[in-house]
């Protein structure tokens, strides 16, 4: 027997599938969870970096900047691009 009324949740699901047709039937648990487990992962390949440095020679090193046309492999973060990991020397605003 067909259920005439669609639950709010099912209606929301239909909306999401309309926007993202490639979305699987069920959220793949392992995808979400793997993303959660990998939080904080930052990759730096010293081989890529040194090869790019050697290729560039006197030229400026490509930085992970707004130039999206750079081919991956040349488009690598440089030490200058990594966020500065300084400790919090500023006092919390709650401490006045």
């Amino acid at each position, binding site marked *: 027997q067909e259920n005439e009324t669609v639950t709010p949740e099912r209606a929301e*699901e239909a909306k*999401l599938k309309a926007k993202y047709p490639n979305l699987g039937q069920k959220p793949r*648990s392992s995808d979400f*969870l793997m993303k959660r*487990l990998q939080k*904080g992962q930052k990759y730096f390949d010293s081989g890529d970096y040194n090869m790019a440095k050697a290729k560039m020679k006197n030229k400026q090193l490509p930085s992970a900047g707004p130039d999206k046309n750079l081919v991956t492999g040349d488009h690598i973060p440089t030490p200058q691009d990594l966020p500065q990991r300084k400790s919090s020397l500023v006092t919390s605003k709650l401490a006045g």
Partner: protein
Amino acid sequence: SYAADIISTVEFNHSGELLATGDKGGRVVIFQQEQENKSQSHSRGEYNVYSTFQSHEPEFDYLKSLEIEEKINKIRWLPQKNAAQFLLSTNDKTIKLWKISERDKRPEGYNLKEEDGRYRDPTTVTTLRVPVFRPMDLMVEASPRRIFANAHTYHINSISINSDYETYLSADDLRINLWHLEITDRSFNIVDIKPANMEELTEVITAAEFHPNSCNTFVYSSSKGTIRLCDMRASALCDRHSKLFEEPEDPSNRSFFSEIISSISDVKFSHSGRYMMTRDYLSVKIWDLNMENRPVETYQVHEYLRSKLCSLYENDCIFDKFECCWNGSDSIVMTGSYNNFFRMFDRNTKRDITLEASRENNKPRTVLKPRKVCASGKRKKDEISVDSLDFNKKILHTAWHPKENIIAVATTNNLYIFQDKMN
């Protein structure tokens, strides 16, 4: 405002005299309640800053290419045994035991030293005098007494001190470890849900807590909406639960979002130890430890969000982790929501209330006005429509004083302390 100021945890100590907050910048700020003013019998003491220190620093694990945030995930207080106070604070990887002590006197009148510390010329010392302690301005010092490191591959979400006051547990996404407060180079793994093949991973641990009275019992919740109660007397590795708490799902209601919104973001035992409360995305559930197949009470926090799940999934809000707490007598439970709203449910009267933590909408020392969200249809005066809720204003962390009706509510980077009206 700085991202570092984002409050990430709030916790009263056992007496309620102290309130600790942790933030994204790795700092801890402790507030102390003023002594009650005899002349002002109508109000309890205010909370003022007592101590602040840098608990954790950002780190980079070069071996694993892993950036370790300094954000304080949880703070738990030890019961007070002597003049000093102790608390555990943890980030994603390392737990630290901090000692907070007061110094209000210092020795003066040394024989061999001047007051500024320079040594006196011994030939000028002709008499013997005994240094005495003289009062000085109160100094509160925090020092790290133990560092419990290198025991978690995944990110720590919970710490819980055992009722034996000697051991504590720390839980990450896949494992739970048991520590002795005095021993930092060893911990025992008591739960391990990591599958042999990570492709088979279906659920993670989201929260864990020791029973308030039974030192052998603890619970942990999962991303699939289940709670497992474990007894450490049964075996060394508690992979097999003693009890499994799970509400049966209505199959006709199943959707893409079902599992995500069933994920439990917090679990808390009642003070009595008879019940436990869980928070999932849309509701708060109270479970009787003697009944595994369904909760005894369910309270809807913001049911109107059920018809907004699509956009809440797109903006990641559906993954927000709300906490919950009990009042001292276990008669009221509280949890946060969006738009800087927080909710309280009275278990006895079955009444509930929505309040707002915001400076613009509440003058200090006035009674908070209840709020109401209009789910659909015609919006009444003073109601707020679902579409005008600010989803960036989340109240994830709240705490209730263990004895009094004083609550601490953290908005993104502000702390509010409310107390009930005393006649």
